[in-house]
């Protein structure tokens, strides 16, 4: 009894510490976003503004040409398009790839998997120049398409690996049974394997969207105006002028976090369900 209570206290302390570490910067970001710029630059520092204001949010969300709101709103639009498209394409490709790596035999197949992971580990700096040259030659710079392709190359190894490790835990009887029942391989994956792997699929989608949403390096290099600039680049642009409005930047940061948070909220049920129990013995 005593031991279990101590254990509980430790667990809660740990969780509280983790929450503190993660939440403090966000909280500070929020405080900055509702402070006026004069407040942020006066000394001594004020922890809470005298007159909290949502002016920064208003100036970002109400569209007006040639203002920060234009680049911010276009950035959100571009990021949504690019992140969702890149996620969609890479998940669609990762499912058959992961199934093949997990289920089909062959030594060369396994080697290919390690090659994919090795490439994934290359630092972006190492490959950005040839990629830039290729995109330039194809006339794809400053388009959504360029970033979708590049992001797929980042997301695909990751999602494939994640799904493959999950498929590995599904007993092989469960893809043989549908074959016996008259399904072809694609139907077996669609009707049996994917529903069972739904939590992992949800996690893969989540992580892929987040990776694409947060990507900065390629976004910075391959885009140059509101037609394709992603939100991360748009926020950086706010700081790049001669006067950096920290309140505005903070508000943009908070707003940019909203779409992923909403996504996570809707997907959490998928993420935490354990479906594989009860199918086979044990």
């Amino acid at each position, binding site marked *: 009894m005593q031991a279990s209570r101590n254990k509980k206290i430790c667990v809660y302390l740990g969780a509280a510490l983790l929450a503190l570490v993660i939440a403090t910067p966000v909280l500070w970001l929020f405080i900055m976003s509702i402070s006026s710029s004069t407040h942020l630059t006066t000394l001594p520092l004020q922890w809470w503004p005298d007159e909290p204001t949502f002016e920064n949010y208003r100036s970002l969300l109400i569209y007006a040409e040639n203002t920060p709101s234009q680049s911010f709103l276009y950035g959100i639009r571009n990021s949504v398009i690019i992140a969702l498209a890149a996620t969609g394409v890479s998940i669609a490709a990762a499912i058959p790839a992961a199934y093949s790596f997990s289920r089909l035999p062959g030594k060369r197949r396994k080697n290919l998997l390690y090659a994919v992971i090795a490439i994934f580990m290359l630092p972006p700096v190492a490959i950005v120049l040839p990629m830039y040259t290729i995109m330039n030659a194809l006339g794809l710079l400053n388009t959504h398409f360029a970033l979708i392709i590049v992001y797929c190359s980042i997301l695909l190894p990751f999602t494939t690996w994640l799904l493959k490790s999950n498929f590995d835990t599904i007993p092989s009887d469960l893809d*043989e*049974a*549908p074959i*016996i029942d008259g399904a072809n391989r694609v139907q077996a994956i669609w009707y*049996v394997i994917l529903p069972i792997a739904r939590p992992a699929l949800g996690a893969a989608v989540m992580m892929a969207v987040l990776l694409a949403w947060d990507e900065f390096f390629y976004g910075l290099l391959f885009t140059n105006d509101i037609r394709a600039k992603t939100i991360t680049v748009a926020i950086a642009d706010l700081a790049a002028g001669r006067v950096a409005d920290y309140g505005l930047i903070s508000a943009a940061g908070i707003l940019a976090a909203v779409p992923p948070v909403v996504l996570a909220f809707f997907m959490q049920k998928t993420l935490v369900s354990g479906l594989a129990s009860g*199918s086979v*013995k044990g």
Partner: protein
Amino acid sequence: MASVSLSNVTKTFGTANIIKGVDLSVGDGELVVFVGPSGCGKSTLLRMISGLEEISGGEIHLGDRRVDHLPASDRDIAMVFQSYALYPHMTVAENIGFPLKMAGKSKREIADKTREIGDVLQLLPLFDRTPKQLSGGQRQRVAIGRALARDPKIILLDEPLSNLDAALRVDMRMELARLHRELGATMIYVTHDQVEAMTMADRIVVLRDGVVEQVGSPLDLYRHPVNQFVAGFIGSPKMNFWSARSDADGRLVLPAGMALSLPGALDPDQAVTVGVRPEHFVLATDDASAVLRGNVLSVEHLGSDTFVQLDCGFGDPGQIDINVRLAGIVPVRIGDGVSLSVAAVENWHLFDADGVRLDISK
């Protein structure tokens, strides 16, 4: 329903020969059981018939159609997996209806057929549950229901009862036997449990190291095993074996000193292995009929039977040489000296140095 025939079917994994040329035919509506020790290739052979495993050589026919080149989904075969392999995200009804859905049947047809099967297997009250809400026996019935859904030509069962507890296993065994009678389906059943094999099979196929050792009815295998392996594998407790020689007249010299004349079986001075089933011994009424003498090492009284373990001095002292199953309650005690005889000449089994049966002419 259809017959199955295998001719010279082989399977190799790399350099390992798993199935070494199996010829077998299973008649329409027959229930054939594959038995053998683990690793003998019985499950592999079943998977080759199902199409889940490709064959390396030979031919497989279902009815008059050659199927070894067809994918599993086109062979019109159903299979019950050892693990049940139920779809965890589907209800019982959806599980049973899945093969029909894959066959492109209408919703109505699926519902009707599913209900019909649910009725036969008493699954109707469970139709809306998912597999994890079911007990082992219920899951087993759902797996069988799914196999029956498409009215398949052949039903393959891969150790379907091995995950159930003993009592349930007996029930399900009887249920499967009943289904087989009612449906008249051709069934191939893999098990390592020879009681299942003996009680359910029309014919038993005994496999060892990828080779069919013997095919025959349960009692045929029990009475006339073709070699020492089959003799030892079929029957429980297993057959007793000991080494012996024949004398100059071709008579079998028994440990108790007596020489037994088994007409036509033995050459003079031939080394043989003698086999007698535990239940074929009786206590010798007089010294002249005794074939074996030994000291009792242990006694188990089951009421209906008495199991006695004897040290007959074949090996080290204190080693169990012979198991005996005597009918009823027999008053023997540990340490007693016991003489045994064998009632009938057909209860003797003789095997040559290669383990092949030597026929005893009547």
